[in-house]
């Protein structure tokens, strides 16, 4: 399934709803990436140090190893930026969606708001098991399943499918 169902293509509300979702998430991830790139003091260490649940051991391993921490920092800075560009411009957006989902889901898994887990970092909302990271990861899954960039986006120029 790499193409959008024609019933959605032909339904403007459904189709443009998906495009808007893609552009908004693209915008968000692009700024997440760029804000880290332009901050010389940003490090994933702070987030990782506060990690709870099944990946807290992995988080500690990364923080205690300067090479792994550097890799983690660069992966986040450039990864998020590229995913953001991909979704915003509609360029290789299916890859962008799935990679972006991987990033956002990992943020959820490193610090999920499960019962009994408390975090030092203040929360901006109220969450029980489900938080915005989980929802954004799901939204990226939806974008992967319903690709729009071959119609609205630079992928259109690489696509041989019937255009509308």
């Amino acid at each position, binding site marked *: 399934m790499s193409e959008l169902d024609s019933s959605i293509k032909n339904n403007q509300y459904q189709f443009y709803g998906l495009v808007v979702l893609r*552009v908004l998430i693209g915008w968000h991830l692009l700024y997440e990436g760029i804000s880290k790139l332009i901050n010389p003091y940003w490090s994933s*260490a702070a987030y990782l140090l506060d990690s709870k649940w099944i990946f807290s051991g992995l988080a500690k391993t990364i923080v205690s190893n300067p090479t792994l921490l550097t890799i983690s920092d660069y992966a986040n800075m450039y990864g998020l930026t590229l995913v953001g560009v991909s979704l915003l411009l*509609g360029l290789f957006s299916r890859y962008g969606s799935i990679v972006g989902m991987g990033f956002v889901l990992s943020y959820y898994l490193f610090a999920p708001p499960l019962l009994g887990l408390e975090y030092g970092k203040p929360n901006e909302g109220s969450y029980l098991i489900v938080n915005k990271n989980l929802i954004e990861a799901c939204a990226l899954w939806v974008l992967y399943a319903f690709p729009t960039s071959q119609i609205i986006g630079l992928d259109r120029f690489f696509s041989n499918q019937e255009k509308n």
Partner: protein
Amino acid sequence: MSDTSKEQNNTNLERRDLLKGLATVPIAGVFLVNLWRKMSRDRAKKANLLSNLIQKKSAPAAIKSMANSRHLNIGIIGYGGRGSHLVRGAGFATKGWTDTVSENARKNKLDKQFETFMTQEDLNCSLIGVCDLFDVNAELGLNASQNDVRPGGKPKATATRYRHYKDLLADDDIDAVIIATPDHWHSRISIDAAKAGKHVYCEKGMTRTFDEAIDVYDAVKETGITFQLGHQNRQVEANEKAKEIIDQGLLGPINLVEIATNRNSPWGAWVWGIHPEGNEKTIDWDTFQEPSPNKIPFGEEALKRFFRWRCWYDYGTGLSGDLLSHDFDAINQMMDIGIPKYASSTGGVYFYKDGRDVPDVWNATFEYPDKDLTLLYSATLSSMNPRGNRIMGHDASMQMGGQSGGGSIHGFVVTADEQSTQYKERLESGMINPNYPIYTYSPGSKDIDGVTSATSRYFANKGLLYTYREGKRVDPTHLHIKDWLESIRDGSMPRCNIDVAFHEAVACAMATESYLTGRRIEWDPVNRKLI
């Protein structure tokens, strides 16, 4: 359809293709415009604050290699808890300690104690003399001098045990001594060491009484030895940064400084374990209590006093010399306040009614009329409330860390005062918000960031953010020992030299004297007397 209209149609289709393909590019443009605006805004905000803040950027401390320097032989007098830490700072730890911390590091990758010790610079010295009145500690000291697990590898020489400090001072091979005995021995040993031509690193509080402080000061000045008092806060970068900010007048006129100690555990209140091997045979009790005003025979009470000496005025000065001294010295380091004109203090034994005579709740005020300044010290040993230290200026306040005894290690934040005169325009224009710090210092950070997120502020206060970033931590105690050894070699003044040490000693003695006599104490600088 005619060819022309077909062509027309194709062109329309191509145009439609192009438009749809590039449809979101303008949104990327909007993004870039807003990114640029946000960045310029942040830059302006930073420039506005930092143009004032960073007039002087302190260069990182120059690392002088000690490998080709003159080798120094040191002796330790008092190898207890603090003594062993100081000797580790010089590069010598017991086998038991290195085994334990290397095992801890294996179990927990974030435990950097072992790595911190092993990556310490080799200070090109040997530990060749150990003196302790408790046999177990003396043996540990000897063990530390022999342990190969150290920065620099196998020690060049090992230590001899001396029963009495005078025998250690008589050893001509010893160049310098670290004194980490209880306070009631500090002055005698320091003076005798100075007279024997040995350089001295003395733990704080410098002396137990005011008269002793005068004697140590004179002895150090007369003999010209290199004297370092054990306030390792002098090596803490946060304190240097704080000084730069204060020196530039960014806090405005400062009339009140509040420093505090909050502890809430038996350990924090000096109720330490009595060593199972401590007895009349392993402890030289008579020598221990020789300089103290009140003498008691060896027994259960004596054992308690030997291992928990900080709880009695016979051997120390309680909160004054143990904890106030650190914070006083940190403020003296930042603000050059010197000796106060007046001191008064009150308090009592309110929580630990275990036979001690030093207060566990104690408040002292120091007046500096010529500097328009009051320094307030407030301490409790029965609450961990993280007050930290506060320097309160008319234009901004500086809040330093939470824990007692060098809280500033965890960084500090500066927040503008909403009624500030200096920042009035910027407050009105919204460039400065009195609810958010205008300046956050995080340990390990190379620069200062005026625009920090809530997350980084949180971690900055915990001192976590940059600890692992550079992959190396340094123990300020090691730096303080290093500073002392460097000064011995090149004849320069160490950071906590006798002049500033004397300020601490007199200020603490004044506060103690006030508590014991119930009077306000005045310092007479001309006759060097307390009135």
